[in-house]
């Protein structure tokens, strides 16, 4: 491996690791933390990264693509359909009005109309990465402002396509020689004009069909192998594949990923996909923000500080005004409107792409592009501060802060019981509860089983139950009981830890396969532990006694008392187990424990208890003595 790649990785990772927790601790949010990290390692301060920062930014844009895939996953088609008004109306008006207003501002500086219009369109874009990430972090996605913000961002993503198509028409400057080798060499450009729309449409239709009819079975097959890393690889491969496909036909890769996400939003692998890809999104976005920070050209700012600051303020104020008016028209409450308009008032990462496109196509002068790139970067850097100012200074004065609604996307029924694992053990518990009309949400890791159960109309979710996010979306916050019926003891313990940490209100009932597991679960502080073989073994014992001619009631009582005795003995052994571990191998230990258990069966008083209550022997003797 190339040494410098590793060193670069160290620089980026170290800056993130160092600054993000500090920013978080100071309440500034992770986005600002990454941006600061970028500034620190950038040419302005430490100079640890130079020109290659731009390549890294392109690479990190994959994070934005993944993010939109995840956003799509969260949005079932029905909900997307409900959003059509805000997307088309609000989003469309925002792009149109902002473009016109900023274009007008540009005209007043004496720029010709063509570059002014180009600038207007570019500056109309907001930063999906920063805004969505920040809203998610603050848990504001489900508020009215969050939903409308998302609608606007979605429209901007779509709008990139026509903007890219219009821009070349605005070219006024002579093309640089290298213009032909710009990165968006779409294969579609080589096609005759009449074929292009057909190709684009069929690519999108193909994407939807693929998602529905190909990817679901593929995920099922992969999931069946039980290898998580292959599952993750498949998911990433899919997102990357979509990006390339979309670029080939000249569409925004982020938009493609979003569509794929929506298509898969109803799949049983939704939650698994979400939690598997999420860390990659986080890392890549972090990288993206760092490179934005590093790309801020402080020299340029130092040369014309007033000009740069003036443009930044003018752009942000203009955007915020347009948004605020639209928010008002679309009947957002004041607090929501503030969040909405201030949240989207920066210029987004699409601008970087569009700027390079514009300069390569001779639409904007190099000086303008350099200046505006700095403006965009600063506006992005200011966004977390604007959020913060809004949250700390403006909203408290309103006092009407709307509480974030419950996440609607999550499993809709509020079931009191979550059953983790619906195998040969869990299915009995689950069926029993269902038969008694007790709502149960099932989590299972076996895709075949998930399929079957879903066909039977049950609410079953595929995924690793020990994951916090899956539990959360399964409604762990509202549930009362957590029934752990997993096959693997380690997974059970992991799940117990997750529940104890994040959902301490849940009462946990756990299946244990043998005494060893029971001890571990006891150590984890659980009291409702069920050894899977005990009850049926005892029932067999009862029937054996009855068949031998013992009274049925006597056999049953004997079994119940034996169970109590056994559990007491087990608790006693658990207490001394740790000392013993030092002396015996586990096999020796088990034999030793069996010895202990067997001997306790004899010594114990439990067996006498079975009949003592109805034993007239002592009474008989007393009667004889007293002659009653």
């Amino acid at each position, binding site marked *: 491996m190339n040494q410098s790649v590793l060193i670069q990785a160290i620089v980026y990772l170290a800056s993130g690791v160092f600054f993000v927790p500090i920013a978080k601790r100071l309440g500034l949010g992770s986005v600002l933390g990454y941006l600061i990290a970028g500034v620190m390692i950038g040419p302005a301060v430490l100079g640890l990264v130079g020109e290659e920062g731009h390549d890294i930014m392109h690479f990190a844009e994959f994070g934005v693509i993944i993010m939109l895939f995840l956003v799509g996953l969260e949005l079932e088609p029905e909900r997307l359909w409900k959003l059509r008004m805000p997307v088309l109306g609000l989003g469309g008006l925002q792009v149109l009005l902002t473009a016109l207003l900023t274009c007008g501002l540009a005209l007043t500086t004496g720029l010709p109309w063509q570059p002014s219009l180009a600038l207007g369109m570019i500056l109309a874009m907001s930063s999906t990465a920063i805004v969505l990430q920040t809203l998610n972090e603050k848990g504001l996605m489900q508020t009215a402002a969050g939903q409308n913000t998302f609608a606007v961002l979605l429209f901007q993503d779509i709008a990139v396509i026509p903007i890219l198509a219009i821009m070349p028409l605005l070219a006024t400057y002579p093309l640089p020689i290298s213009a032909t080798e710009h990165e968006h060499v779409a294969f579609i450009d080589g096609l005759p004009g009449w074929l292009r729309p057909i190709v684009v449409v069929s690519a999108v239709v193909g994407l939807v069909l693929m998602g529905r009819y190909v990817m679901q079975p593929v995920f099922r097959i992969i999931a069946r192998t039980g290898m998580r890393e292959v599952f993750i690889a498949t998911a990433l491969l899919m997102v990357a594949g979509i990006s390339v496909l979309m670029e080939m036909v000249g569409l925004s890769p982020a938009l493609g990923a979003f569509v794929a996400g929506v298509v898969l939003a109803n799949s049983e692998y939704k939650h698994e996909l979400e939690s598997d890809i999420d860390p990659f999104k986080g890392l890549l976005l972090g990288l993206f923000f760092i490179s934005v920070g590093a790309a801020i050209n402080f020299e340029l700012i130092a040369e014309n500080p007033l000009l740069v600051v003036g443009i930044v303020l003018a752009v942000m104020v203009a955007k915020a005004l347009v948004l605020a008016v639209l928010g008002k028209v679309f009947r957002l409450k004041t607090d929501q409107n503030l969040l909405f308009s201030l949240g989207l008032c920066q210029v987004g990462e699409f601008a970087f792409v569009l700027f390079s496109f514009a300069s390569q196509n001779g639409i904007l002068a190099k000086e303008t592009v350099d200046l505006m790139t700095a403006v965009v970067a600063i506006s992005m850097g200011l966004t977390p501060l604007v959020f913060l100012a809004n949250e700390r200074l403006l909203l408290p004065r309103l006092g009407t802060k709307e509480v974030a609604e419950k996440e609607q996307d999550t499993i809709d029924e509020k079931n009191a019981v979550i059953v983790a694992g619906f195998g040969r053990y869990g299915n009995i518990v689950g069926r029993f509860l269902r038969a008694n009309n007790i709502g149960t949400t099932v989590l299972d890791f076996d895709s075949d089983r998930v399929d079957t159960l879903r066909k039977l109309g049950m609410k079953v979710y595929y995924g690793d139950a020990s994951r916090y996010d899956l539990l959360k979306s399964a409604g762990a916050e509202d549930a009362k009981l957590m029934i752990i019926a997993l096959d693997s003891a380690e997974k059970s313990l992991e799940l117990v830890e997750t529940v104890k940490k994040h959902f301490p209100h849940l009462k946990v009932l756990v299946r244990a396969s043998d005494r060893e597991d029971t001890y571990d679960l006891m150590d984890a502080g659980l009291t409702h532990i069920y050894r899977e073989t005990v009850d049926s073994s005892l029932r067999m014992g009862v029937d054996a006694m009855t068949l031998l001619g013992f*009274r049925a009631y006597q056999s049953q009582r004997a079994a119940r008392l034996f169970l109590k005795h056994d559990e007491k003995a087990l608790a006693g052994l658990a207490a001394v187990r740790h000392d013993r571990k030092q002396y015996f191998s586990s096999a020796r230990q088990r034999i030793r424990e069996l010895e202990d258990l067997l001997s306790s069966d004899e010594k114990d008083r439990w067996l006498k208890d079975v009949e003592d209550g*109805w034993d007239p022997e002592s009474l008989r003797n007393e009667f004889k003595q007293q002659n009653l």
Partner: protein
Amino acid sequence: MSSVLILFAHPALEKSRTNRLLLEACRSVEGVTVNDLYEEYPDFDIDVDREQQLLLDHDYILLHHPFYWYSSPAIVKQWEDLVLEHGWAYGREGKALVGKKILNVLTTGGRHEAYEEGGYNRFTMQQFLAPFDQTAYLCKMIYLPPFVVHGTHRLSEPEMRRYASQYKSLLTMLTTDQIDLEDAKTRRYLNELLVD
């Protein structure tokens, strides 16, 4: 020809010589059905439909059990609570059991004299059995005096066998309709009708 249902309840029959002999005796009488409650329902989950059908199918109902703490073992109470449903056994619509005859068949450790006023147990059997009497009354059944084996703690083997054969005679008397109900109702114990 009448039919007799014995609702037998003993949680530890393996400990009771007397009841084993009594139960043995009644199994050989034609027209008698023995319903061993603790054996049928060791988990106390009484099958109400089955029990109600059994009641409908018989003319005489005998609650046969040891006299624990001046009453019955727990399962008899459970049986009453579940089987004698309102609207079936009693209440305006409850007419399923009208006219059926019911009595207790009891074993007590204490001797007959202990169940006299001024005796060791201070009350008579009739007084102790008032809840059963009233239960029968509410169900519009005819409550007959009990058949009692007193002093089981000190019974000898031949004495026990004598009681067993008396019990068998009683059952034969009931199944062959040789009992004068009006006369029976005036007795303290049904034992009085049986001459060895």
